[in-house]
């Protein structure tokens, strides 16, 4: 719930329609997902951040970092990643629920 409020707060001025749409879907379903990046396979091409409508993935230092509080779980980054290393874990609320080797 707190995450939902945070997302809503960050989206008072939604940046485009897609965000609004996904936000609505999320509200209705009350369901969350988590994004994970396998850093081993990542080639730092910033493809994910260029398609992310929410600026929720950025390069920090020498690796891609995902910011769940901004993310709306739209999955666009998964489709945009040429190295296929981003995973969307449906229905997972907390990183702790994802097995270590998949993070």
């Amino acid at each position, binding site marked *: 719930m707190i995450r939902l409020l945070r997302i809503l707060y960050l989206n008072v001025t939604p940046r485009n329609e897609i965000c609004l749409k996904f936000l609505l879907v999320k509200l209705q379903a009350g369901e969350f997902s988590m994004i994970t990046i396998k850093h081993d396979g990542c*080639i730092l*091409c910033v493809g994910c951040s*260029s*398609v992310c409508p929410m600026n929720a993935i950025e*390069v920090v230092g020498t690796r891609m970092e995902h910011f769940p509080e901004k993310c709306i779980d739209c999955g666009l980054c*998964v489709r945009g990643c*040429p*190295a296929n290393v981003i995973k969307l874990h449906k229905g997972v609320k907390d990183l702790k629920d994802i097995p270590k080797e998949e993070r």
Partner: protein
Amino acid sequence: MKYDHDVIVIGGGPSGSTFARIAAGAGMDVLIIDKRKEIGVPVRCGEGLGEREVIKQDLELPKRCYSTEIEGAKVVAPNGKSIVWKGPETTGWVLERKIFDKWLCELAVEKGAHVKVYTRAIEVLKDEKGRPNGVKVSHGGREPHDINAPLIVSAEGMEALMARQMGFKTVHQLYDVDTCYEYEMKPYDHENLIELYFGNEMAPRGYVWIFPKADKKANVGIGVGGNVENGEKQSGIKGANPKVLLDRFIEKNEQLKDASTLLDFGGVISVGAPINEFVKDNCMAIGTGAKQVDPIHGGGIALAMESAVMAADVVLKAHEKKDYSKDSLYEYEKTWRAGPGKKVAKRLLLRKVMEKVSDDDLNYIFNTITDDDLKQTMDGNFACPVAKVVAGRPQLLGILSGLLSK
């Protein structure tokens, strides 16, 4: 307010360095910041560049900046039939981007620009009216600090997160990007031609390229439409998987099958329309960050440098007047849209029409047209080639008429 510099350029790629070279050359105090540890590294590019574009800027490209000189292009249809196109339009280089980018940046430094690498812009600072007046940067992940300037130029490439903060619409839609994967391979015998392979099965809404390099090396890469759904991605999501498709192509290619891979990387490149505005009060966007990329082949180096020149010319005038308002900078946008913008719009139209053409029709088209038709098509004169194709296959009129209406 006291400023640290006249202008801050975010990004030291071809567009940022070109802009800085001209602005600094005319006496402006320019600072380039780039988040990379070394300018030009890592390379994320097919490295093809048409000769004309650089000559336009009176630059002499030193030998070390390119690997091979290119005499022409070979375009291959799904059934293997190819058209070789040689002419002044198709000569160029396959660059060594690492050296090329650094060389461009060095030229800027020689003109007096300052460069800071491993320095990431993390926030655009704004005055009370919301106009950018500086950036917050972090050097090598250390404690952030502020740098101020009356003009901020975003030359950020695909990511363009700072440009987003300035209010530019730089988020990419999947439909308007190609996801790419590329290997540098050896050995590959070539005839100094860039080779482009088309086919919906092999590279849906894109193509496979082989750009020859010196010492029997070649950049072998693929770009596929970001919105195609022909493969399984992580989490069961359907999407394009360029690496898998590229591996498949290489397996079937007699020469490449046994070649070794020396470099392995990927990327995403815009193939859509440029952003709707390039300038705002006290800031502007140039190069790939403004989505100024050729929608047909995804080439962005030439366009990036061209737009940087236009932007710099306008900025110099604005600097004289000390007026960095949107109106004063708008001339850059106007010149761009009247020049390269027109060409890009035509290429975008062509891309959108070609993605509807099936492999069989593509084979037919390649059988019918000549290298001259190909040249006309790339120049944006569609009438003659379309007439030729439609004469033999009238059913294509429906799709191809899209090219004629404008």
